[in-house]
Structures are given as structure tokens and as C-alpha cells.
């Protein structure tokens, strides 16, 4: 490539840089109806400063942008708690059938029986995986499921004449969405300390078990990638005090076919279908966050749920609203396009396949733990589940931060792990390989991590300045926050 490469020159341009008055990227037909009178001009707008580009401009622009991204399709993506597994292409192909992608959410139910049956089957299968007797596909993402969950807990206590149950217990290792969701549900958040295993401190739970307790929100396995053997006991304590237990299902990829939240004592759990069931993340969505619940919360589920009605001839499906529903979460019925992909994935694997998937996910995480523990200290030295948390403290003592290690991984073509989370681990590097990565990829990753550890000793400046191979280097985020430039404006 030379400096005269016109492709490289255009690589930094915005749509507005490509724009020329009168150009267009699509031609629409002429009207085929008799001309109707237009409304009064005072209601009409005059200016609309959208870019004017040709169809090829659109294609080249977005293709160039795409090429600046890392993705699962192009790179190993060991991003802890995000479950960046392979997104099967058949999922997209099934979801793009016109009978799914082209139907209107408010068509009469008799015209969308296939869609309703798919939702019914997925609802049933998610209930089987979680062991829960009821569920709703309505929430549109994990945090949306959390909101549904805390609202159900609130409605339950109010219906039982205990509106003063206002305290939601949340471990200090939780994702930020947990306290934010509890707060949106009108609860007071009380943060509980973790023990040295990153597991909830039993004594702290007992101390908080009183008549102000609304519930506990807890991630299984926890955010250190560990399964707390006391989890059933914790659920008993919370139930004993009249509270309910919310399971954050972000880490369900470890438990598919291995344990059911219902059996452990959970009252409600959400599933991140875009993690556990392989639907693509899309650069930050769409997701889907169905909730599955035990008997106590079933009447409060968000609307709609899908019911089957046995007619004389064949089963019929319809939307229904549970008796004491917390209401609707969106104008639609859930992120249907994501639900189709999720159902396709579950049907591709079946129960045995899911169990093999969780087994391989946990095998891969432990393999990385064992192969890298002599270089990067493991936060908690014991068998992990689907993810392993390292601490870069030994490297920090040599002046290299977890951030630097992560940025250097980019130069080796690996997406950085989740950094500085959970908050209870210093210099945390949270690695989740997922089951869809081969041993060859894992071995290559191990070599990269060992090479980087060597660079910490020999040439730390390489890490401080990394990444070196990307379209841009480390960005001035302080400037971005101090002088926000959030939209294109005419120069």
C-alpha cells in the first residue's frame, strides 16, 4: 500500500464526506394512485440534512467500517461473562424466512399460528433447562429480564401485604445491571461482601435476613466463574426470612444440563439468549432476556406469555396475560427474531448436545487456567466453571497494567478479555473461551499470553503503547468526555 492508495484515503471519511447534492442510494417508484392534495405547507419541513451518497458509496463505506471491527467470525474473543461463542449461520437463515421476518406483531393470532407455536416451544424448552414451571419471553435483553424479575418480586410482596420489604441484597461481585435494575424497581440496594472465593458470605446473608428483606440477586456461577456449593443453603436462608431469590443467568453457559436453578432454590432466573444460546451480539444487541419463574412468581410474569389450547382438530396457540402480571415490557411480544435463532440453536443441540457444550466450555476454561497459572496468578486457585479470572498483580508490580496486557493481545489478533471485573479482584483479567474454540486455538492463545508475559519483563514499552496494528491507537477518552462531540455537524 502506498500513500496514494485512494482506498486508504477514503477509509477515514464519514458519510457526509462522501455526500454530493442530488445523489441517491436507492430509487423509489412513482405513485400509482391519483394525486391526493398535500397538507398545508406550514406542517411540512424544508430542511433534511441527511448525506446524499450512491449505492456503491453505501456498500464501500460500511464494508470499510466492518473491516475495522474484531468479531467472533474473525477473531478469538475470550471476553469473560459475555459468552462469545460461535453464532451458527443456520440460525440467521431460519430467522430470515419471510414467514418469520415479514410478519406484523399485531396481525390476528389465527394468521400467525406458526410464530406462536415457536414461541410456545421455546418457552417450554427454557423452562426445561431452568427447571422452572413457568416463563415469559417478553424481556428484550438481560437487564430487561432483571427489571422484570425485580418488578415481580415487588408485586409479590405487595400482594402479600408486605410492601415494606424494600431491601435487595446484591453481592459486591455483581454486574452493575443488578443494582441498577433493583433501583429501577424501587428497591434499596444493600451490598454484601464476598468471601475469599468470591462467594457470598453466609454470615452476611444471615445478618440481613429480616422482615425488610425483599430478596437477593445473585449470579450463578458467580462472576469469578465459581459455583458456590452453599447456594441452596443461601436460598433457604433468604426464603426463611420471607425473601425471594433472583438468579442472574448471564453465566448459564456453565450449567446447561448440569444444574437447574429451580432445584437450587431460585424463584426467578433470566437467560441471556445472546450469550447462552448463540445468537449474535451485533456490536451491542439485539439480545433477549426471557424470565423463568417458580410457582410463587408465575402469576406476576410480564405479558405476554403463550398458551396452547387443545381444539378438537389441532392445537391452537394464543397470547395470554398472567393473572397479576407486572405488565408489558415493550410494545411487541419479545425480540422474536432473536427467539427464532435461539430456538434453532436448542433444536440443533438437544439435551445431550447442551450438556456436551457446557462440559467443553468448562473444560476449556480449566485448561487455560492450568496452562497459564504459572504466568498470571489465578484470582482463586480452584476448579473454575466456564470462565477463569486471572489477576495481573505480578505484572502490575513491574509497571504493566491489566489494561496494557489486554491492549497488547490485540496485536496478536485476540480480543481483550473482560478487564477490571469483578471489582473485587485487582487487575482482573476475566477469560471465557467458550466451548466452540478448538484446542489448537487455545494452545495458540496460551503461547500469546506467555509471550506477552515475557514482554512484560523484556520490553514493557511494547505493552504501554499497544495496540500497534489497529486503525487507531489508544484514544483520548478524557477529551471525548470533557468536550463531547456526539454528532456530525456541518463544518
Amino acid at each position, binding site marked *: 500500500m502506498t500513500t496514494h492508495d485512494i482506498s486508504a484515503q477514503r477509509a477515514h471519511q464519514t458519510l457526509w464526506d462522501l455526500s454530493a447534492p442530488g445523489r441517491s442510494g436507492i430509487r423509489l417508484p412513482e405513485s400509482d394512485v391519483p394525486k391526493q392534495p398535500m397538507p398545508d405547507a406550514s406542517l411540512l419541513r424544508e430542511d433534511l440534512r441527511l448525506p446524499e451518497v450512491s449505492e456503491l458509496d453505501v456498500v464501500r463505506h460500511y464494508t470499510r467500517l466492518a473491516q475495522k471491527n474484531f468479531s467472533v467470525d474473525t477473531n478469538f474473543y475470550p471476553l469473560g461473562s459475555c459468552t462469545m461463542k460461535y453464532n451458527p449461520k443456520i440460525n440467521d437463515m431460519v430467522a430470515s424466512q419471510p414467514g418469520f421476518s415479514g410478519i406484523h406483531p399485531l396481525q390476528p393470532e389465527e394468521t400467525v399460528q406458526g410464530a406462536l407455536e415457536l414461541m410456545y416451544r421455546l418457552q417450554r424448552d427454557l423452562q426445561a433447562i431452568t427447571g422452572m414451571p413457568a416463563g415469559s419471553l417478553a424481556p428484550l435483553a438481560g437487564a430487561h429480564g432483571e427489571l422484570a424479575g425485580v418488578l415481580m418480586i415487588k408485586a409479590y410482596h405487595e400482594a402479600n401485604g408486605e410492601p415494606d420489604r424494600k431491601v435487595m441484597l446484591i453481592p459486591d461481585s455483581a454486574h452493575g445491571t443488578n443494582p441498577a435494575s433493583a433501583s429501577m424497581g424501587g428497591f434499596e440496594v444493600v451490598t454484601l461482601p464476598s468471601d475469599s472465593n468470591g462467594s457470598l458470605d453466609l454470615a452476611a446473608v444471615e445478618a440481613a435476613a429480616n422482615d425488610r428483606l425483599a430478596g437477593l440477586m445473585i449470579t450463578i456461577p458467580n462472576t469469578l466463574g465459581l459455583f458456590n456449593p452453599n447456594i441452596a443453603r443461601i436460598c433457604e436462608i433468604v426464603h426463611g426470612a420471607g425473601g425471594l431469590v433472583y438468579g442472574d443467568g448471564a453465566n448459564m453457559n456453565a450449567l446447561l444440563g448440569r444444574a437447574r436453578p429451580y432445584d437450587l432454590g431460585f424463584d426467578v432466573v433470566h437467560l441471556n439468549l445472546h450469550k447462552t444460546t448463540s445468537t449474535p451480539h451485533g456490536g451491542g444487541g439485539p439480545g433477549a432476556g426471557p424470565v423463568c419463574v417458580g410457582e410463587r412468581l408465575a402469576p406476576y410474569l410480564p405479558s405476554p406469555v403463550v398458551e396452547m389450547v387443545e381444539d378438537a382438530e389441532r392445537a391452537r396457540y394464543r397470547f395470554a396475560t398472567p393473572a397479576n402480571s407486572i405488565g408489558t415490557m415493550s410494545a411487541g411480544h419479545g425480540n422474536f427474531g432473536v427467539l427464532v435463532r435461539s430456538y434453532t440453536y436448542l433444536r440443533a443441540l438437544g439435551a445431550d448436545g447442551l450438556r456436551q457444550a457446557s462440559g467443553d466450555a468448562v473444560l476449556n476454561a480449566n485448561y487455560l487456567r492450568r496452562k497459564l497459572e504459572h504466568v498470571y496468578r489465578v484470582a482463586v486457585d480452584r476448579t473454575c466453571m466456564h470462565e477463569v479470572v486471572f489477576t495481573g498483580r505480578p505484572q502490575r508490580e513491574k509497571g504493566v497494567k491489566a489494561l496494557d496486557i489486554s491492549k497488547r493481545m490485540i496485536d496478536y489478533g485476540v480480543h481483550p478479555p473482560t478487564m477490571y471485573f469483578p471489582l473485587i479482584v485487582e487487575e482482573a483479567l476475566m477469560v471465557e473461551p467458550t466451548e466452540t474454540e478448538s484446542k489448537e486455538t487455545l494452545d495458540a492463545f496460551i503461547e500469546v499470553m506467555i509471550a506477552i508475559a515475557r514482554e512484560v519483563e523484556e520490553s514493557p514499552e511494547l505493552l504501554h503503547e499497544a495496540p500497534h496494528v489497529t486503525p487507531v491507537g489508544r484514544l483520548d*477518552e478524557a477529551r471525548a468526555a*470533557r468536550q463531547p462531540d456526539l454528532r456530525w455537524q456541518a463544518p
Partner: protein
Amino acid sequence: MTEHPSELRYTIEHEWVRVEGDGNATIGVTFFAQDQLGDVVYIVLPAVGSTLQAGARMGEIESVKSVSDLFVPVSGEVLETNQDVLDHPERVNEDPHGAGWMLRVRMSDPSEVDRLLTNEQYDSAIAS
């Protein structure tokens, strides 16, 4: 070797207080605090004229990826806030004990200052 001048008093939450010649208190955050935060990008301060009790939350200070509460070290009425630091939060990094000051307070109980930490006490607190 301390970055924290002896003429200021300190809180364990990393605010400093300087008693001015007119008896009013100037308040800011410490060198140590700004060093821990990194680039300060946004500051929220209480309204001029409001009355605060020592220890109350008086505002927020944000870096790119953190937000921390600010607590008022002494009780009193807010006389002035530093518009320059609100417009240019980087002043806190450049000169935390000078141009990076945040507010002036008319103290209702000047003896509260005596109960704050000396620079030596503060330095040993942050060292532990």
C-alpha cells in the same frame, strides 16, 4: 516528601480545607485523590447559597470510568463555587491544591477544622 502541604487540613475521603484570611474555608480534593482518579472529566458542585453539614455529600467527581462522591469537610454556607474548574475539570489534575479548588464556605463552626487530619496524619492514612 509529601505532595500534601502542611498549611491544609484533610479528610479521609480525600478533601482538603484551607482557612483563608477572612475566616472562610476553601475546599478541594487532594493530590493523592486526583492521582488515583486519573483524568478528571466532570465535576458536580452544590448550589451557591446552600447550607451543608460536615460530612454531607456535596457533589461528584468523575474520571473517564469512575464516579466518586464529594463530602463537605466543614459545616456552613456555600459562598462561591469555582466556575473555572467546572468548565475545565483538568484543573484538578494540573493544580489540585491551587487552581483546582472547588468551593468556598462560610463556616458555622470553625472548630471543626481542628478535628480534621494534618498532612502527616493524612499521608500515613493513605499509606496504609
